[in-house]
């Protein structure tokens, strides 16, 4: 039917089915800003439009109801190609990050400012109450409104957006806004879904209803007869290639324990069949026609169940080693089951799959028993974390087609080069036949470090030749994706009355679920990112990771560290209270400082011996001191309402900046013929501002405006190799590679200028805005320099190349402080104050860094208090949607929320920069747990810390 309406001031005729959702119709008509993050749940707000003057979810409007309506989408905010004042303010404030919802948020705030030119904080909260922001938190949205008002009323931003760093530099450490901010906030077609042609075929995955079962047979014959079904892939016709979906450096510290489809399903939602069909309707019909005969097996869901004697074995395949096979391997394999397939280790992970052990490690320093013997008090407690979903607004998605005999894939990924490698393995084709295009990523948070959909989409496209589009449903994001490993962390800590910690022991038991993605490295992080913050002589850890039948786990921002910190800081807080001393004093007495030799690292490598290095730049003590002052540490706050008890807590934290010795980044920078620049980076910008960092490197070194620099990144054809954006590697590794490439280009420019000007190279300098000047007064612009170098007698294009590898660590440190109020009658918890103080070295994009701290801390507050996947007795996730899962929104944001960048210059980072975002997920759980204990005396040692658990702790029922 035709629907006549006005959209963004134009008379439009929409063509739609009568019962179609308006969201789908608008998107199809080219209004890309109207997206869908929640499969019509009415939660995330990506589908927000102004409908007859009112903000509404377009998913809840049927197309015919738009007849005669006046509609506005984010596309209507633009004046030609110029974004409006609100959008400019949003970019300036740093909140346009992964940006899947940024256009909708811009529309909402523009609507608000039209209605209320000077809105209150409550007005802003109300306006944003229906939109989910995961990446940047909500705090700088208030700043964005303030900036928008200033721009509207005074023609410029007046307020400080973020502090500036390094006065001698022009771009580095200055809030400039992201170079791709305008494209993202305006709703340009920058995501994978925007690149899908109408003729794309559909991939539907038939999934297992059982948590643990052998597939005895699959009959696809009836389904294959349907018109429009191109191929059905199952365990019985897929390649016999074992791999893993973790996007890690090769050889990976994760076992290759799966194929595209397996003869055994290991979780509810595991792949059973992949159906390539012309339409979704045909695929759905085909799925109904597939007959699967299962042989169910008893499942195991917890570490305790998995480690029990006689427990069902989740991975009972034949074990192979690429290196380091044990002598008794043949004997070991005698009890394997062919139907379980294989487990191929790249090197030993100390696994014992027959006992459900996916990986193991242990190590330490000093004499742990002696340390405990010296203690005046010992606390020995166990902490349990839950299964957390990353919830990127853009679900996992992929479009692939064949072009020129090559497989071309548009991906939303953190690891384009790992995608290329793994798709190559699965398809059994060389990498030159594969082109991965990393589009803008609408939220990753670690889950897009894993190759969760690209393997199957790539294979199906390669064998059928069909252009194929696949997108996870929101529910699939929960039960067929990657999540935080649930962990049981036992911490035993001993200390003296003077506050000295004499010994720390950690026993980490992690639940990796059905497959071994990150099964060694995530749990390792629970110790390797926590123990090195302590200057304690006696420390030891044991680690075992277990296979179970819960939905898959994998990488999530913070990796294993948030779980480790929850345990170790909670234990320290309890120990301090037991000793009758101030936990902050105890912390300060036992933290590392610059130069302290980290002997503990020797046993904390990722599957190999770690390097012992000294602590580098370290703002930890300053973060603790400043945070303590901000929150009035030591002052007991009292509520006027006797039901509400107030308490304070803190956590000192650290993370890393990539993986020295493992990660590798490269970049190229080209001087174009008109004197402008393109930097090609292998790094994957996930909305984090990595491309802006690369551009700033060019501007800073070459003395040119950001406007003359473009960045192409994450395209495996045009950009050089990079291991990818994970482990907080972006700024340190990819940024350093960009910096090295630009420095190399500078050298080449100077050499060429020397020749063209006839002046010694040493007497030349680069001068703003884009020329080379000699001491004698001669000068030449980049434009002329490049033009002449590219003439018939020229010496060729000037291209700088940078490769960054390093043995050096650039560790970010920080401290998070929380003040909570606990209602001892109802158990309700309010986070009144949350202060995140972090040493990020030189924050290259300070406004973006602050927002990442807010976003990460908000995620962590969510994990601590609200979020958690719940499985029923069959292993089915029963809260696989945003609402029931407990996703925090603006009203969950702390009333007083501050992020502070501690100014520390690092020796190894680009311009002194370190990582910023992952570390910020580490502090909320321990600081809030400590604050709750301070408020009401109850230590809750399991995530999420709910009112119900507090009431139980108080003995209320």
């Amino acid at each position: 039917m035709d629907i006549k309406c006005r959209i963004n001031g134009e008379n439009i005729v929409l063509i739609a089915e009568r019962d179609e959702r308006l969201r789908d119709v608008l998107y199809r008509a080219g209004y890309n800003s109207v997206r869908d993050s929640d499969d019509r749940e009415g939660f995330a707000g990506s589908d927000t439009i102004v409908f007859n003057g009112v903000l509404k979810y377009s998913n809840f409007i049927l197309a015919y109801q738009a007849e005669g309506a006046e509609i506005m989408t984010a596309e209507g905010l633009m004046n030609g190609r110029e974004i409006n004042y609100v959008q400019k303010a949003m970019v300036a404030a740093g909140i346009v990050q992964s940006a899947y919802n940024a256009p909708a948020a811009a529309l909402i705030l523009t609507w608000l400012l039209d209605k209320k030119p000077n809105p209150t904080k409550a007005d802003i909260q109300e306006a944003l109450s229906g939109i989910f922001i995961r990446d940047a938190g909500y705090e700088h949205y208030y700043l964005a409104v303030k900036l928008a008002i200033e721009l509207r009323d005074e023609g410029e931003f007046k307020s400080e957006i973020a502090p500036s760093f390094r006065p001698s530099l022009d771009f580095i450490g200055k809030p400039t806004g992201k170079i791709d901010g305008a494209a993202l906030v305006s709703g340009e077609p920058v995501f994978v879904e925007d690149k899908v042609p109408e003729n794309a075929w559909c991939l539907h995955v038939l999934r297992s209803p059982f948590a643990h079962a052998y597939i005895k047979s699959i009959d696809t014959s009836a389904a294959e007869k349907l018109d429009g079904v191109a191929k059905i892939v199952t365990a019985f016709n897929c390649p016999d290639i074992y791999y893993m979906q973790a996007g890690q450096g090769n050889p990976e510290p994760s076992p290759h324990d799966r194929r595209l489809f397996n003869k055994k399903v290991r979780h509810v939602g595991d792949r059973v069949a992949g159906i390539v069909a012309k339409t979704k309707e045909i695929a759905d019909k085909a799925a109904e026609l597939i007959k699967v005969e299962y042989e169910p097996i008893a499942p195991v869901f917890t570490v305790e169940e998995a480690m029990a004697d006689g427990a069902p074995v989740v991975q009972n395949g034949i074990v192979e080693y690429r290196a380091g096979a044990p002598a008794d391997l043949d004997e070991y394999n005698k009890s394997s089951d062919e139907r379980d397939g294989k487990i191929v280790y790249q090197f030993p992970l100390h696994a014992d799959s027959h006992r459900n052990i996916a990986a193991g490690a242990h190590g330490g320093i000093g004499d742990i028993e002696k340390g405990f013997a010296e203690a005046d008090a010992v606390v020995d407690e166990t902490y349990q974390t839950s299964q957390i979903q990353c919830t990127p607004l853009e679900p996992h998605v992929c479009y692939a087609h064949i072009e020129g005999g090559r497989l071309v894939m548009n991906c939303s990924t953190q690891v384009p080069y790992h995608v290329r490698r793994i798709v190559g393995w699965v398809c059994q084709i060389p990498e030159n036949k594969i082109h991965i295009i990393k589009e803008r990523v609408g939220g990753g948070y670690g889950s897009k470090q894993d190759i969760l959909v690209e393997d199957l989409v790539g294979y199906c496209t390669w064998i059928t030749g069909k252009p194929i589009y696949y997108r996870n449903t929101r529910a699939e994001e929960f039960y067929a994706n990657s999540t935080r490993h649930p962990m049981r962390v036992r911490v035993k800590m001993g200390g003296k009355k003077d506050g000295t910690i004499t010994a720390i022991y950690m026993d980490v038991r992690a639940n990796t679920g059905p497959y071994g993605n990150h099964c060694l490295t995530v749990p390792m992080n629970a110790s390797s990112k926590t123990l090195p913050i302590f200057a304690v002589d006696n420390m030891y850890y044991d680690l075992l990771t277990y296979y179970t039948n819960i939905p898959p786990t994998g990488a999530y921002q913070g990796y294993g560290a948030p779980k480790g910190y929850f345990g170790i800081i909670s234990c320290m807080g309890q120990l301090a209270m037991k000793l009758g001393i101030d936990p902050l004093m105890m912390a300060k007495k036992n933290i590392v400082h610059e130069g302290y030799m980290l002997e503990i690292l020797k046993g904390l490598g990722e599957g190999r011996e770690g390097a012992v290095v000294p602590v580098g730049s370290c703002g930890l003590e300053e973060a603790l001191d400043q945070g303590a002052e901000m929150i009035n540490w030591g002052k007991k706050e009292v509520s006027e309402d006797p039901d509400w008890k107030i308490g304070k807590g803190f956590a000192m934290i650290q993370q890393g900046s990539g993986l020295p010795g493992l990660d590798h980044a490269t970049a190229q920078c080209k001087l174009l013929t008109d004197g402008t620049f393109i930097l090609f980076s292998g790094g994957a910008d996930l909305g984090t501002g990595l491309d802006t960092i690369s551009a700033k490197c060019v501007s800073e070194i070459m003395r040119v405006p950001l406007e003359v620099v473009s960045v192409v990144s994450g395209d495996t054809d045009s950009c050089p190799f990079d291991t990818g954006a994970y482990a907080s590697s972006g700024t340190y590794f990819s940024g350093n590679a960009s910096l090295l490439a630009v420095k190399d280009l500078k050298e080449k420019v100077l050499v060429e200028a020397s020749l063209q000007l006839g002046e010694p190279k040493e007497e030349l300098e680069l001068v703003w805005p884009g020329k080379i000047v000699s001491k004698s007064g001669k000068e030449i612009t980049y434009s002329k320099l490049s033009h002449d170098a590219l003439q018939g007698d020229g010496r060729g294009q000037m291209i700088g190349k940078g490769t960054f590898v390093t043995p050096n660590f650039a560790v970010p440190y920080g401290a998070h402080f929380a003040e909570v109020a606990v209602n001892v009658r109802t158990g309700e918890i309010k986070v009144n104050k949350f202060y995140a103080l972090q040493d990020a070295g030189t924050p290259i994009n300070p406004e973006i860094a602050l927002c990442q701290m807010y976003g990460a801390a908000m995620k962590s507050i969510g994990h601590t208090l609200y979020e958690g996947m719940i499985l029923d007795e069959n292993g089915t996730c029963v809260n696989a949607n945003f609402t029931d899962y407990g996703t925090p929104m603006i009203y969950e944001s702390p009333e007083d929320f501050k992020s502070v960048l501690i100014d520390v210059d690092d020796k190894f980072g680009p311009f002194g920069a370190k990582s910023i975002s992952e570390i910020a997920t580490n502090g909320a759980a321990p600081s809030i747990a400590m604050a709750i204990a301070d408020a009401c005396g109850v230590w809750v040692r399991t995530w999420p810390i709910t009112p119900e658990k507090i009431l139980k702790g108080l003995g209320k029922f």
Partner: protein
Amino acid sequence: MVIHQAKTLEEAVKLRHEIENSAYLAGGTEVLRLNSSVDSSAELIDISALLDASISIDGDKLIIGAGATLQSIKECELVPEFIKDAAAFCSSFEKRNMATIGGNVALKRDDSYMLAALLAAEAEVVIECHAGEKVKPLSVYISKNCKGVVKAIRIAAGRKGWAKKIAITSSSHATLIAAESEGMYAISASGSPVAFGRDREIYKNIEFVSDLRGSAEYKKYLASVIFEGRR
């Protein structure tokens, strides 16, 4: 999806009776929602254009048209504060701009934003039925399987009261909603029928169940102290 656009409320009621598996479509926030409590195969009878959305005082009664959105209720000065608070239990602004009070009442969800407050306010429901317009106490309406269209909600103007929602997050479905108005108490706990009456200990009549939002013991405890917690 089969959709009927009724031209009058009478026609809508007739269709609703004629089509066994059918549901009214008003604001759309529940009927069109993923995981809706309404059968996804139900034929929809669109009454969104037929509902009165006004809020007015008629004598000593506050009349809220069934088409009034939760946001318009929250913003209306005529509406008692605790009823506004209940409307705000729907935390999403966009959703409040769409969800209607008629729809919220007619759905009778155990975690309904409005039911506890309206029951405490001893609200009446104006219904368009087969036999024409009827007025029933809300307490009676929710106990019947009525296929009529809710046309309006009536409560005493100036009614005083209090309402509180306890949930995992602001946007979660409620674990428990309690309301009190001039000696009338109401509690809706997820998984259990709403309870109401003049006895503060109405919770004793509720058979609490454990679900995603909390254990039965937790809900029972909350219900036992929630009115004491009012300050």
